[in-house]
C-alpha cells in the first residue's frame, strides 16, 4: 500500500532534464508555478499543458509513473473540483433538486483541478523525479548562499532536507512493516469511523517515531565518525556547473513562459 507513493522518489535516467543544473530547475519551476497561477484563459492553459507534456517527453519518465504520483493528491483534486462545481454562482447548466451546477462553476472547477495537476506534475518532474535529493539540496544551498552573511544556516537546511529525503523510502518500508505487524495482532486500519481510525494510527505512529529517533541518533554518530563537521571546508563530488546546455534550456523555457503570459494578457 505504501510502495505506490512516488512523490519524492528519484527516477534514474540520463535525459536532458536529468542533466540540467538543479539551480536552473529550481528557478524554472518557480517561474512555471507563477505562470500556472497567472493563466485562466482556455488557450494559455492549453499551452501550459503542452509545455508540461513537452517536459514529460524530454524527461523520458513513463507517463504512467507520473500519473501514479498524482494518486496521493487525488482526494484534494476531487475535493477542489466538487467544491468549485457547486459553489461558484453563474447561469445554471443542470439542476438536481436544490443544487445547481453553473457554467461558471464547471469552468472554475476544471480550471482549479487542471492547475493543481500541472503544478504537481511540473514540480515533481523538475525537482524530484529527475533530480537526486542531494542535488536539490545542494542547489538550494547555493541559491541561499548570499543569505549566509546574515547568519542564515543555508548548509544545515540543505543537509536536513537531503537526509529527510534519503529516509523517505526507508521509513515508508518501515511503516508498511509495522502496519502489517499490528494487523497480525488484530489492529484494523480499514474499517470503523474516523475516531477509531485515528486511534488505530497511534499503534503505527509510536513505534515509527521511536524508531526514527533511534535512527537519527545512530546516523548522527555515523556522520561524525565520517568526519562530518558542518559545511565549512566541505568540498563536493559533483560541483554544479551552469553550462551552455543549461543557459540555452533556461532561455527557451523562459521564452515559452513569456509567450504563454502574452497570450493570456494581450
Amino acid at each position, binding site marked *: 500500500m505504501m510502495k505506490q507513493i512516488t512523490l519524492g522518489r*528519484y527516477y*534514474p535516467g540520463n535525459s536532458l532534464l536529468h542533466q540540467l543544473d538543479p539551480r536552473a530547475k529550481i528557478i524554472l519551476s518557480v517561474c512555471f508555478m507563477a505562470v500556472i497561477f497567472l493563466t485562466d484563459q482556455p488557450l494559455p492553459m492549453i499551452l501550459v499543458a503542452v509545455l508540461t507534456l513537452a517536459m514529460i517527453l524530454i524527461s523520458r519518465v513513463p507517463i504512467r509513473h507520473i500519473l501514479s504520483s498524482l494518486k496521493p493528491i487525488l482526494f484534494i483534486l476531487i475535493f477542489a473540483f466538487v467544491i468549485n462545481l457547486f459553489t461558484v454562482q453563474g447561469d445554471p447548466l443542470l439542476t438536481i433538486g436544490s443544487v445547481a451546477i453553473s457554467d461558471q462553476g464547471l469552468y472554475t472547477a476544471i480550471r482549479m483541478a487542471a492547475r493543481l495537476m500541472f503544478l504537481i506534475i511540473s514540480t515533481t518532474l523538475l525537482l524530484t523525479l529527475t533530480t*537526486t*535529493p*542531494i542535488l536539490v539540496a545542494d542547489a538550494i544551498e547555493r541559491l541561499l548562499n548570499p543569505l549566509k552573511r546574515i547568519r542564515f544556516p543555508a548548509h544545515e537546511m540543505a543537509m536536513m532536507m*537531503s*537526509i529527510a*529525503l*534519503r529516509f523517505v*523510502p*526507508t521509513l515508508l*518500508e*518501515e511503516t508498511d*512493516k*509495522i502496519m*502489517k*505487524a*499490528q*494487523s*497480525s*495482532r*488484530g*489492529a*484494523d486500519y480499514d474499517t470503523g469511523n474516523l475516531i477509531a481510525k485515528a486511534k488505530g494510527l*497511534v*499503534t503505527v505512529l*509510536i*513505534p515509527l517515531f*521511536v*524508531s526514527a529517533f*533511534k*535512527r537519527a541518533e*545512530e*546516523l548522527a*554518530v*555515523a*556522520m*561524525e*565518525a*565520517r*568526519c*562530518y*563537521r558542518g559545511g565549512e*571546508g*566541505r*568540498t*563536493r*563530488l*559533483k*560541483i554544479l556547473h551552469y553550462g551552455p546546455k543549461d543557459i540555452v534550456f533556461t532561455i527557451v523555457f523562459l521564452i515559452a513562459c513569456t509567450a504563454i503570459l502574452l497570450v493570456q494578457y494581450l
Partner: protein
Amino acid sequence: MKLFVDMKNVHYTYRQSSPDPLLAVNDVTLNIPSGQHVAILGRNGSGKSTLARLINALEQPSSGIVIVSGMNTADEGCVWEIRRLCGMVFQNPDNQIVGTTVEEDVAFGPENLGFPQSKIRQAVDASLAYVGLSDYAQKQPHLLSGGQKQKLAIAGILAMEPSCLILDEATSMLDPVSRRDFMNLVQDLVQNKGMTVINITHHMEEVLLADFAHIISDGKIVASGIPAEVFDRVDLIRSEGLDIPTHTEIAHEIAAQLKQNLLPMEAISWSGAQQAILRMLAAAKLQQQPADLLADRAHLSGSIPPDEREPIIEVRDLSFVYSPDTAMAMRALDHVSFDVFRGEIFGVIGHSGSGKSTLIQHLNGLIRAQQGHVTVLGMNATANVDIRKIRRHVGLLFQYPEHQLFEETVFQDIAFGPRRMGLEMSEVEQRVLKAAHIVGLKDDELERSPFELSGGQKRRAAIAGVLAMEPDILILDEPAAGLDPAGRDEILDYIANMRDAGVTIILVSHSMEDIARLADRILVLCDGHVHAYGKPSEVFSDESSLEAAGLSMPRSTAFLNDLKQQLPALDNHAYQTKQAVRNILQAGLSCQNAKECDQI
C-alpha cells in the same frame, strides 16, 4: 612492532554527573599493533562498543589515555585525523547511509575532509570497484541488500584513505552467505592492504579469522590471546554467554563424559577435534568404561507418529508475483506445496530473497494468493472470507518484533491483541500473565515501559503479545536475529516451551543451526520454489543439494559426516551438540565387531 592503538588504564563512565553513573569501561589497557586483525568479544552491554568509540575519538576517556597512531584522542586538534584513519562500520546497515545514491554516499567522507573534486572522483570509483559495487554507483541505497549496504559502508570508509577499520557488530544483521562475503572482503583488506582491523562481534567463525582476540566482560578485559588460546578456555567463554565452535564443544563434552583431559589447544581445529575424540575413545575402551554411560541414550526426537498427524495448514501450488505485468515483475513463489501438522515445529529455511517472507504472509492473509490454495484450520485463506477469523488463529511475528511495541507498559502491550479480540478484562489479564510466564518475563517487568527493557526482554515481550491471543499456530520470522548467543539460546528454549504448551510453530530462519536444533520437519526454499521438504534426516542427507540453495549443513552434522570416515559405525544423523556426543559415544564404545574396534 609499531602500535596502532595504545590504551592505558582507560575508564569511561556514562552519565557521569547523574545519580546513577554507569561504568562502561573499567581500567582497560590494550595494545593493537599496526596491521593486526583483532577480535573483541563480549555479550551485549559488556562495554565493547564503547571501547570502539573510544578508539575512534567519538568518546573521550573519563580517565586514562588513548593513543591512536601516535595521536592522543583527547587532543581536540587530532580528533578528525583519528576519525579519518579509523573508519567505523556500525550494526544497522540503514542507519549509516547518508547519500541518496550509492556514489554520493561514498563521497560523503572525502567531501567532509575537503578533498579536491578530482581526488574525490578517483577515491569513489576505486572504493566502489574494490568492494564490487561499481554497477550500483547510481542506484538508490535502499534498493541494496543488507550485505551490499555494509559493503557500501566499507567503500565509504576506504574513500577516506584510512589505515584501520573498526567493525561494530557489522555482520549481526546479515544472513550467513552475506556474512561470509563481507568477512572475505575484510580479510582481503588485512592481507593485501595491510589494514588494521578491529572486529567487535559475537560470531565465533569471525573470531577464528582474527590474529588475536580479547574477551571483554563488564568493561574489563578478562582474556586475551590468539583465538585458539581463547577458545580453549571453554568454561570462561560459556560463562560469558558466548559461543564455542561446534566441533570444539563436542570434543570438550566427550572429554567431560569420559572423564578425560584434552591437551591444550588440541580441539580447536576441525581435524584436531576429530583426532582428540578418537584418542579419547581409544583410551576409554582400554579403561573399560562403565556401561551406564551408554544407558542414557533416550531418543531425542519428539516427532508425532505419522498416522496421528493432523494437517493444520495445507498449501497447494502457491505462486506469487510482485508487481505483475510490469517491467519490475518479480516471481517470489513458484508452485509451492506443503503441509504443517498440529503440534510440530516446522522449519522454513532459505537464503535472503528466497521467498520465505512472502510465503508466511500468505498464511495469515496479509497477502492473498494470486494462484494456488492456502487452507488454515480448514478455512480457505485465499477466498474472500473474513480474514480476521484466520488471524485470530495464526500469530505472526516479523523480524525484530520489538520494533512494534507501543504501549505505556509491557502489560498493556501484551494485552493489546486479546483486547482487540473483545475478551473480558479478567480473561485478558489471565492470558497476559500466562503468555508472559511462557516467555519468562517477570511480574515487575510487566509494569515497566517496554522501551526500558533490554533487547532480549523486548523481543520476548513482543512474542508474548502474540502468544496472549492464544493462536493455534505461531509464525516466527528470525526470532533470534541480532541477539547475542546467550539471548539467542534463551529465545530458542522458550520456543520449545511454546510447542510444549500446545502451539504449532513455524520457525523461519536462515540459520541452519537454529532450525536444526528445533525443527521436527523442514521446508527449504530456493528462489521461490521448494528445494527440499521433509524430516531433518532427509533434508540434511544431501550436502551438495543444500549448498546449491546457498545453505550449509548444521556444523554438528558436517563434523559427524567427516568423523564417520574413521568411525564407520557412527550414526551421523545429529543436528545438535548433545545428540552428536551421544552418537559418538555410542559408536565408539559399543562397536559391533572386532574389525571396527581396531580402527579406533
